């Protein structure tokens, strides 16, 4: 059974058609890329999956359960996590806190346990602290655990955002332009990182990206969007040679 099934997903902003009839079947373990020019509706698809917007029409099934109408926090708790096109860390909080916050849904102690520091609070807090630190260590961020998030260099902020997403223990990870603003060296590192977390955490990934190098390098399957429509789909080579894609988006870049 596919992990994620999207059928006829359509979204309007007033009269503007942002996404039209978007379909996707995602098998567990796949890494699918979504590309397309600015304003093609890629991020909107992510916002629809994670419940930030409610679709005008269409169905989204995750593991057989419908996501339409659910709140973002409920959807995240079901096992979907995402990062953002522009970094959205909790920038005045510490690196460790950024990751710990993402354990919110996995915590079961109540307000009274917290107010009076009851054993359940102590036990779960100790667990969260340790798990968060382990994750930071895995992601190479442990040395900066006490730092305020905004004081991290850009590349590490990107990585912290991925770490924070992983802390929610997702099965499906949505990465929204993770390579934006990175130099070629950082991009190589990022590609290694994505491949590695995919194996390490057993993830299924959807990747939105403008950097052709990343998309063509690590995605097994690519969907191309333009003006809300899906104009092509296939392996990197197929997509690269598709005349509609070359015309609509890749243009001269494909020739290079």
């Amino acid at each position, binding site marked *: 059974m596919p992990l994620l099934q999207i059928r006829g997903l359509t979204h309007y902003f007033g009269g503007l058609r942002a996404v039209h009839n978007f379909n996707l079947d995602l098998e567990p373990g796949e890494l699918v890329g979504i590309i397309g020019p600015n304003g093609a509706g890629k991020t909107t698809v992510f916002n629809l999956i994670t419940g930030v917007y409610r679709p005008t029409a269409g169905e989204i099934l995750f593991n057989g359960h419908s996501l339409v109408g659910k709140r973002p926090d409920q959807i995240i708790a079901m096992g979907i996590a995402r990062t953002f096109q522009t970094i959205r860390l909790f920038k005045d909080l510490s690196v460790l806190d950024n990751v710990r916050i993402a*354990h919110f849904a996995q*915590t079961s102690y109540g307000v009274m346990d917290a107010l009076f520091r009851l054993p359940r609070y102590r036990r779960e807090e100790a667990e969260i602290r340790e798990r968060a630190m382990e994750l930071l*260590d895995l992601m190479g961020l442990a040395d900066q655990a006490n730092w305020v998030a905004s004081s991290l260099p850009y590349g590490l902020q990107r990585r912290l955002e991925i770490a924070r997403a992983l802390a929610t223990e997702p099965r499906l990870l949505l990465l929204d332009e993770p390579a934006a603003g990175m130099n070629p060296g950082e991009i190589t590192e990022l590609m290694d990182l994505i491949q590695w977390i995919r194996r390490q955490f057993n993830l299924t990934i959807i990747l939105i990206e403008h950097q052709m190098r990343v998309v063509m390098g690590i995605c097994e399957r690519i969907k191309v969007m333009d003006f809300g429509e899906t104009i092509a789909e296939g392996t990197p080579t197929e997509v690269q040679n598709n005349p509609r894609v070359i015309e609509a988006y890749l243009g001269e870049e494909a020739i290079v």
Partner: protein
Amino acid sequence: MKERRSVVDNALRPVRALYVAAVRPIQEAYNALPASVRRWTMPAVLLLGFLLSLAAPSLINLYWQQVLIYVGINIILAASLNLINGYMGEFSVGHAGFMAVGAYVASIMTVWVFPRMGLKEAVPYLFPLALTIGGLAAGLTGLVVAIPSFRTRGDYLAIVTLAWNMIVKSVLENLDVVGGPRGFMGMQKLTNLPWVFVWVVVTIYLLRNLIYSNLGRGILSIREDEIASSLVSVDTRRVKIVAFVISSFFAGVAGGLFAHIIQFIDPRTFSILKSTDVLVMVYLGGIGSLGGSILGASIYTILMELLRPLQVWRWVVGPLLLVLLMIFRPRGIMGLREWGFLIPKEERPAFVDALREQVRQKREPAAVPAGASE
């Protein structure tokens, strides 16, 4: 990112230098003490504080005892409002409304309910219960206010709480049972310095516990970025409602304490001006800081006492101070910083460093690819 240095920052620089020069050596000497000794510092200081509050009648005159009681009540008000305005980053302006509910309900308890239950003699002992019931009533009204105002995002909370403050005042004015505009009296003078001391300590302790918990981190993340917060699994609506109820509870407790020191409450006491006072204390002391609230409430309360000769003009000081703060130092004196002793041991940088080493020792080596670790 560094805050722009303002006139106020520059003016405060010598004060800060003096503070550092005076405090640093003491801090260092203290930190050199063995941990087994340091463990007992907090209990010892609290005990000493409590004993001093018991001995206060023979140490200072009635006037200053009263001022200190107001300082304590205002600390409770400021710290609880800080939870919403500072830690959560919402803007509530009707704290006096919740205070009023607590004041009236606690007073009704000690004046009517307990005596009619044949517990007239026991009223002084039942005072904490009366305060708690007052707090619960305030918390309940907090829930009623929170549920509709947090259905939407944005600045609605300010408008709703402003309206709420006015509603409470007019309801009380038109409720003849509790005296209407003539006010409510008959309370014994049950609030004294030891009680206030205990309630301040309890409030700060509980709020601190809350802040350094899952819920507290949820509250902080809402201030930082509400969308991102919900997208890392924080149930933002529930967090906001719970925070608001807890904040109102403590406002209610403060109201009960207040009613039993002045022994006469009327609806005008809990006008928007009272709420403004609390706002000034929060923003003066510093948002997102319990230490800041303690500082802000103390400075502002004592300042207002010292400014008594100004008479009516005194009331210009609060709002004016609020405007100036917003322009020159929007985060207040302690903004987003905390006094070390108010931070639980497990949250301090040294503990985190130790945890990192512990985690590293447990980990099987070479888990990270070359690209993923620097």
